[in-house]
């Protein structure tokens, strides 16, 4: 049954860090975020693009971030920085590059082809650096599934909320009603293609309640993670993903049942006197993996 375990490390939170700020980058690993996202795009002015690119590539290459997953947001394919960003960042071997403003599958295939060239030139395993495709236009959202399946490199779809409001000509609201369709569409496309789905950022640093509500919504809709713009947001996001105690107790029983069935060579798993299907067992394993991030390793750890 070990094959049922989720082999992807959990990525509930991804913390944006401005790419030209060494004071922040040097502490990227300490804030408890599952992944960090070094930003070469919006957080860096035009005249510092080269400096930020070099700084980030050195940090990714030379600094040990431990268990934290390191990703880099590059500049879009419509900018003069796109190719240089890839050429310098890919060889530093981040887990993934986030490609902003994906309007259509071509944006991804272009990045994919370039990355393959770079990987070959640097003797890297082909496809080792993943792509997180950022959808932030109406056109991009409507092509979510096509984008999701456009390259084997794609690991996740992510929602870019700020640009999307502009494209839609709407305002960001506290409840996020304007993104209901976009969120649903992205999650559905990502899951259909077997990818992760990451929610957009909550920008009001003083409104932790608002963040909590939005993170809870993201969890309910099915996002696998949510971006943060400040270390103070990480805890709230993780709390939203904390597994429900009752469900977790049941998950421990399901896993115990599954293991017993395997030991005894039974094909049918039964828990609490009821038969349990494969997908439910998988979900139980995933839930227990998730629980370990909260220091819960066994049923006794639940209070």
């Amino acid at each position, binding site marked *: 049954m070990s094959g049922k375990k989720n082999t992807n490390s959990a990525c509930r939170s991804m913390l944006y860090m401005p790419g030209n700020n060494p004071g922040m980058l*040097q*502490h990227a690993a*300490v804030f*408890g975020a599952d992944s960090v996202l070094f930003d070469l795009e919006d957080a860096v002015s035009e005249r510092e693009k080269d400096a930020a690119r070099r700084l980030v590539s050195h940090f990714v290459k030379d600094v*040990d971030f431990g268990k934290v997953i390191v990703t880099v947001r590059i500049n879009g394919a419509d900018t003069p920085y796109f190719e240089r960003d890839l050429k310098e960042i890919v060889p530093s071997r981040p887990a993934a590059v986030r490609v902003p403003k994906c309007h259509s599958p071509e944006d991804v295939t272009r990045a994919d082809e370039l990355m393959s060239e770079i990987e070959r030139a640097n003797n890297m395993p082909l496809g080792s650096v993943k792509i997180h495709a950022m959808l932030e236009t109406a056109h991009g959202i409507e092509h979510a599934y096509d984008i999701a399946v456009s390259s084997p490199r794609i690991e996740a779809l992510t929602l870019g909320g700020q640009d999307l409001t502009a494209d839609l000509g709407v305002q960001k609201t506290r409840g996020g009603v304007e993104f209901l369709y976009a969120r649903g569409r992205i999650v559905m496309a990502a899951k259909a293609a077997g990818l992760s789905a990451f929610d957009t950022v909550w920008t009001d640093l003083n409104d932790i309640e608002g963040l909590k509500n939005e993170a809870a919504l993201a969890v309910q809709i099915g996002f696998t993670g949510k971006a943060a713009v*400040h*270390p*103070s947001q990480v805890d709230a996001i993780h709390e939203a993903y904390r597994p429900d105690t009752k469900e977790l107790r049941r998950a421990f029983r399901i896993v115990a049942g599954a293991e017993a069935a395997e030991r005894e060579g039974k094909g049918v798993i039964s828990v609490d006197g009821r038969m349990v299907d494969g997908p439910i067992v998988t979900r139980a394993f995933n839930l227990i993996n998730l629980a370990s991030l909260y*220091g819960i390793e066994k049923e006794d750890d639940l209070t």
Partner: protein
Amino acid sequence: MKMIKNSLARLVPEEIPGVGKFEPYVSPFAYLDRKLTSPAIKSRPIHPQAPRHDKVTSDIKRAIERSGLESGMTISFHHHLRGGDAVIPLILRALSDMGFKNLTLAPSSLPDSHDFVADYIRSGLVTRLFSSGARGEVGRAISNGEIEIPVVLRSHGGRARAIEQGDIAIDVAFLGAPACDKYGNMTGSAGRAACGSLGYAQLDARYARHVIAVTDNIMDYPLRPRISIPQYLVDQVLLVDSIGEASKIATGAVKISRNPVDLKTARNAFDLLKASGLMTNGCSFQVGAGGASLAVAAFVKDYMKENKIKGSFGLGGMSGYMIEMLEEGYFEAMLDVQSFDKSVTDSMTRNPNHIEIDVSCYANPFNKGCAAHNLDMVILAALEIDTDFNVNVQTGHDGVLRGAIGGHPDTAAGAKCAVIVAPSFRGGVPTIKERVTTVCTPGETIGAFVTERGVCINPRREDLIRRARDAKLPVKDIRELKAEIEALTGVPDKPMADESRVVAVVENRDGTLLDSVYKVV
């Protein structure tokens, strides 16, 4: 100067010419095994007075003449007026103008802003300095070897001990008094230059041969509603225009840091306190006024609130945050030796459980029992810590004096769990050293060193290690963390120092010597 190695393998002088003989440091409580005897108790000097004699003068020179001060004697000041203090400059200038030489300056500490003291060292007015610390220009002057006799640096408790034991014999104490009556009753909780507790001054008033209250605020006799130093200890009341700049004395409330690295550090420190099992009803707690320390206090407060815990007392320097915890009922009392910000100043007059204590009561290891010895938990800062957990709060990475010892070693020695909080590196410089530049607090008294990157527990504290591991805290070996940080910053060179020239010594609270500070090159 003949040097001898102490138990921490630090070379310290056996004798400082013009100051006296010293023993090398052995261990935090080795003093309990020493055959220490008190000097024979003599009666206090008597001062026969006629009824209604006039203590007040506004003539500084006259007051100094009456005090009997001579060149070569010892003068003291308190540092309660912090960066706003105008008493030390006023008196030193007058002494300089009057032609005094060769004085011993023995303040409770020197405020950050008092760079001018360096000039009086150069002029020969001050030839010996005993202090809790030396910063800015004064620190640089000492580190450059501009004072011939090594400076003796003591903790607050150590200074109290030295005064009570006679190592420091104060001839004249000039004590700034924010509120004072004509007969010398004084307090710090009222007046334009109000500063809160007068805990350091209380001791000097008891032991100085001659006490001058320096005030800009003479109030009706008798001073009310509280008297911090009573009239029978005060020889003269010197009325001046101003004893200090109010805005620099009563600074705005110290705020909790919003720096995410500080907050992460504070969170780790709080998690360790929680794991220590010490946060229970009746617990006692001290934090410094630094942003990261206060952030620990904020976590502690939330925890006490959630778990309906009521502590016994908070101790030490008081910030508004600690007083808030008192007022909201999380502690029974606050024992205040020094107030840090404006919000604290008048709280003592309003709240009987905000209690002014003198520095001997706070931290002197040689009286009949000090409050620091009743502490459960203390959160302390550090400039450097070494792999043996010795802490430096006095010299910078360049070897220059730039800090103050304060109550650091006293509370570390007294508390059940002393936690050092500091960033793992700051300004690109690693905090963990193989050997700290200067030992101020011996590693034997430290429970743990906590940074944004994890918790390093002193191997001497197996109990704490076990509890931290049970609580799944990010426990790291201090040597591993040191290597992790040096992989980022690079390995620092050892700064150059002239080890043939001792410019200062750090005295342990029991009077033994912990370390020497050398001239920088």
